[in-house]
């Protein structure tokens, strides 16, 4: 058994799924639960190849419902547990995800968005944004990181385990089929060697001692009897979520300060927006780009600040308005006109964003 999955740092050229599996290892994940679905499969493939060498475990379940619930079981026993899914699998997994939300189970979910609705394509989309942020019968009390590159898949998968266990919210890495399947370079590292403090997991059931003798038995539930009782339970979670938000929120800005046109995009689409900003700035046009990295919680104040200053906003996404809705909710009160460029289930290129942005100048 190797001492550490990754010693020091190394530059590699791999697929995103590979990067995610390595990141889970580097984060000290103990067990993965999963069910095959494209484009997520290689996370399991790499994990099952790597895990036994490091004393880690894997369980292939009968469906995504089970993958989610077994994953929660792993967390209950105090292990860093995760699962990964996509599309229809994400739909099925909402049930365990909502239990995680209610019971504050710090499970980590990696989502590799594919086309939707229904079976659709196995390729790519940003159509699981609403589902991942607000799925299930609940309030979206989840932490969602929307990544744009392999480096981020690696960084934020590690971070997801820490955030989850620190704040006890289910935490999501929202990637997509492009990121899963493409190859590009990144630097893998041992997070501790970089000075990243790794949050230790702890058992949620089976704490030391004999229940009823040395300590009280742990009785966990997600069922409530009364409206007011549930209200209190939910508001406790809401308040914790609000309290945590300023510490967790992340975003990136590109030439936003003096931007007349503010391009809004998340995930891999942000790369097209960044490319467009670069090109348009070279042409002397005042275009900027704001990218929320956490979609839950959302960097509301920060976005509002730039949205107010801009003369026009351009929302770009590979879905039909899922991100747009989120933007509107979060900049409520800002009167800057919004133009949309929606390509549900289709990749977006720099050229397209440039063209759309130019129409606003």
């Amino acid at each position: 058994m190797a001492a550490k999955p990754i010693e020091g740092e190394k530059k590699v050229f791999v697929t995103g799924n590979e990067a995610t599996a390595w990141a889970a290892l580097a984060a000290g994940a103990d067990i993965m639960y999963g069910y095959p679905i494209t484009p997520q499969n290689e996370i399991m493939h790499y994990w099952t190849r790597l895990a036994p060498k490091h004393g880690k475990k894997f369980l292939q379940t009968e469906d995504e419902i089970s993958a989610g619930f077994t994953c929660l079981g792993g967390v209950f026993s105090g292990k860093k547990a995760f699962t990964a899914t996509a599309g229809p699998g994400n739909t099925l997994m909402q049930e365990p995800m909502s239990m995680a939300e209610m019971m504050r189970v710090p499970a980590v979910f990696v989502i590799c968005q594919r086309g939707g609705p229904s079976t659709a394509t196995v390729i790519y989309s940003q159509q699981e944004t609403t589902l991942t942020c607000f799925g299930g019968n609940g309030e979206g009390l989840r932490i969602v990181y929307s990544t744009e590159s392999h480096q981020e898949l690696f960084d934020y998968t590690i971070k997801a385990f820490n955030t989850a266990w620190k704040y006890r919210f289910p935490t999501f890495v929202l990637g997509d089929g492009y990121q899963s399947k493409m190859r590009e370079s990144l630097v893998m590292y041992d997070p501790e060697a970089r000075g990243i403090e790794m949050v230790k997991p702890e058992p949620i059931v089976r704490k030391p001692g004999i229940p009823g003798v040395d300590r009280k038995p742990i009785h966990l539930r997600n069922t409530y009897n009364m409206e007011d009782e549930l209200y209190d339970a939910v508001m406790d979670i809401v308040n914790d979520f609000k309290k945590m938000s300023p510490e967790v929120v992340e975003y990136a800005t590109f030439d936003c300060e003096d931007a007349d046109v503010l391009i809004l995009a998340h995930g891999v689409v942000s790369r097209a927006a960044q490319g467009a900003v670069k090109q348009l700035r070279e042409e002397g046009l005042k275009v900027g780009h704001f990218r929320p990295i956490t979609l839950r919680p959302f960097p509301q104040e920060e976005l509002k600040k730039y949205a107010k200053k801009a003369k026009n906003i351009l929302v770009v996404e590979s879905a039909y308005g899922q991100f747009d809705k989120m933007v509107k909710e979060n900049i409520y009160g800002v009167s800057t006109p919004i133009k949309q460029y929606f390509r549900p289930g289709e990749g977006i290129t720099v050229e397209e964003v440039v063209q759309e942005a130019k129409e606003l100048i």
Partner: protein
Amino acid sequence: MSIQPQMPKSWCLETKPHKFCPGCGHPMLLKALGEVIDEFEIADKVVFGCDIGCSLLAWDFFNVDTIQTHHGRTTPVIVGIKRADEEVIGIAYMGDGGGYAIGSQHLVNAAARNDKVFVLLANNTQYGMTGGQMAPTTLPGQKTETSPYGRDVEATGPPFQGPEMVTAISQEGAYVARATVANPRQLKKIIKRAVENVKEGRGFSFVEVLSLCPTNWRTNAEQTWKFVEDDMAKYFKIGELKVPGESKEG
């Protein structure tokens, strides 16, 4: 009520008297389980999971760490715990709806994988907690809220044979049996063997227990026992179906 002397040590006194209906089969079953937990002295190793349905009323029943899950999802939660922590004695407690309908895929696959957990299922021929609807185990002709003219097997199939199915798909090392609350001594013996089987790490354990629901059967005491002993026994054969390397308890 002075039932205290009879209560197993592993029962949580603070939550007694329990909330099950008078005449319900669940407490009888949970008493047998409690006694087995006592006798093996495993309260600190057990993680007890309960389903939605009347089984969820057991969420604070024991002096044992307990997780109340979603309908049908107790098996995967307990399997997940067991896979992450091999020392756990995982017990998934559910009704016939949770085990044979909404959670059947989990039962089938946990059995097929020979997960070393104990699935304990109370069969009372209907959905008790939602108001007495038809379940996979409802007897032919039995009236329920969703089979108001009696279960029509042509349209809805015959009573589900759970242990028989698990026997067919389970692996070497699995323990499978059907018990009844009408025979408490045998019930306890069977639960004990099922717990021992997972405790020893031999394999999957599955026990279906014929239970009582006078509330939804609308039966008095005499009719209740007659229903379980005569009517249910006609369709559900009591005894051990699979025992790792040993003779069966008939």
